């Protein structure tokens, strides 16, 4: 089975620092890593390849730093990586990113299945896999928590209210959730071998595209979480019951109990 996996090199949000005055993330030089759900999509593809044979190719779209993710992609075991970079792609909107992914997939050629993380670790738009499916006119199965391919594709999708089990045709686009698997951690020997492997580097002009974004991002700020600081005085042991009642009332008001 030939599988294409969409992989983003996201900001490592856990290590991201925010400007204390403006609340904006300090992105210059911020560490990046493979997006968590995309990593699980790659793991799922590699497991399918290990069982059924075939190839695993990857598509990455982003600013030039995105090329760094290729080492990890190869270290995990993918066969071939395709990267489309442009300085302006750091601010690409989901429509444009999906278009670039689709044009790259067309260049790659035949495939049986497209996998992607349901959302990226940083922008978290949840839109790319669906848009890719729509542009390719393929069926889309979102948020997979489990999938099997031998004897036909079966996807279990977590749609919020319940887990739906689908018999899916091939080719399809499947987006995977964090729960689907525990991705492998590459060994040093795999990392070293990966660093010697070549990848295909596309520029937007190779795909006949340019950065035209209709979406304007005005501001990205850390949400302010104000503490309520409710203090219940209960220094007199005989009035402890009242104090407990007040705490319970406060918690009920917040709908937490």
């Amino acid at each position: 089975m030939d599988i294409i996996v969409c992989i983003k090199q996201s900001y490592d949000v856990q290590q991201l620092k925010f400007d204390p005055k403006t609340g904006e993330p300090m992105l210059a030089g911020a560490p990046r890593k493979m997006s968590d759900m995309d990593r699980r999509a790659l793991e799922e593809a590699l497991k399918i390849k290990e069982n059924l044979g075939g190839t695993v190719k990857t598509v990455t779209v982003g600013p030039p730093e995105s090329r760094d993710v290729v080492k990890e992609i190869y270290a995990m075991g993918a066969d071939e990586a395709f990267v489309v970079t442009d300085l302006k792609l750091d601010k690409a909107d989901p429509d444009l990113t999906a278009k670039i992914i689709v044009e790259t997939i067309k260049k790659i050629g035949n495939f049986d299945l497209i996998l992607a993380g349901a959302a990226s670790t940083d922008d978290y738009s949840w839109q790319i896999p669906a848009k890719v499916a729509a542009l390719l006119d393929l069926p889309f199965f979102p948020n997979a928590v489990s999938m099997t391919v031998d004897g036909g594709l079966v996807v279990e999708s977590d749609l919020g209210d319940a887990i739906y089990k689908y018999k899916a045709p091939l080719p399809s686009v499947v987006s995977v959730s964090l729960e689907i698997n525990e991705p492998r951690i590459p060994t040093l020997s795999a990392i070293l071998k990966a660093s010697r492997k070549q990848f295909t580097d596309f520029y937007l002009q190779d795909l006949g595209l340019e950065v035209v974004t209709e979406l304007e991002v005005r501001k990205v700020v850390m949400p302010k979480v104000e503490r309520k600081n409710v203090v219940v005085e209960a220094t007199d042991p005989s009035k402890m019951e009242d104090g407990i009642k007040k705490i319970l009332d406060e918690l009920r008001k917040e709908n937490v109990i």
Partner: protein
Amino acid sequence: MERVLEYPKDPVITFSKEEELFRQMVREFCEKHIEPNWIEGDKAAEKDPMNNMPVDLIKKMGQQGLFCIPCSEEYGGQGGTYTMATIATEEIAYADPSVALAVYALLNNGWPFALELFGNEEICQEILPEVAKGNAFFGIASTEPQGGSDVAGIRTTATKKGDVYVFNGEKAYISGVGEVQRLSWGGGWFLVARTGGPGHQGLSAFAFLARKNGELGKGWNPTIYEDIGRHGLTTGGFIMNDFELEAKYLLGEENKGFYHVMEGFNLARIVVAAATIGAARWLLEKAVEWFRSRKLFGRNISSFQGVSFKFAELYARWEAARYFVYRASRLADKIYMEKDPSLNPKDLNVPVALAKNYGPETCVDLAEEVMKWYGAYAFTKEAPIFRAWLGPFSYVIGAEGAQNIMRVIIARDLIGKEFIR
């Protein structure tokens, strides 16, 4: 996982993209398999050193490629640099600051690499893949009951009889005596014994396999000690009564073992120091966490300069220790990986002695201060800090070379041998 202290951005000691990715992968492995379990593991092994050795974890670490990192791929190694072994050791010790697992890892990186330097192809092919997979242990056995620092005074004899060497004597305070018995394949040590006359020129080095393919050698009688810290990796001793070892296990040249083991010690000491800077980083983070939450007299305790200045001093020592460690490992890369003709193994003497001297002492001094900042809570076994004090303390006492021997090496090489006698 969010880190309390950002790893220093350092334009002097720099890492390649592969090394950065490797550090990230080791961290991920440790967050998953080591950090959540080390305290319980240390407690359990404290009660029963032989039966609480984390064999499964060692196997997992082997599968992850955390042993034999600098060894050749043809022997099952990772084909990495010595700096990569240093990075792995630092991160494992950060995740298990009792350093039990870091010591297991550092021994099974440093000494297998020394084995590859001096061993013939047949024995490298036999031993190294098993060590790499986590099926066998390979450490160092030089210390004897009469002392460890006086290597030239070793009394264990290895007498050649036909195709075998026959060993008689006793080794003491040896790491891995339990692991050799418990791991599926077995293993042994880079062992130094007397094959010639008195003094350092009568010593030879061997790949001494107490157990191989699951079978114990005859005439090997082990004992396990109860350690005060670093539980989870056993320390013990063994008596050799006419223990026979095939001659192919001789490492390097006969009667040149003193020089071979000194080269091995230089390599192992780099990763020893790496373990202590990893544990020290954990201690620094524990201190910062505590400073941000602990209030006395209505103020954070770090608002008292008696506390914050001491923290600043110890942080400076940590950065210096880190520099010594990576400077030494980069030098080892140049000597052994890049084969830089302008350098030779002796060039490691002073840089390594500085790292081994400075790292463990910084870590233990830091642990003592952090425990004082934590107050009485740190004196209970509920608080984990003491575990990061007792484990690294083994290296201040003298494991892998006493602290004063490090000072001797520095003084000897800088002042001149004849001027320090």
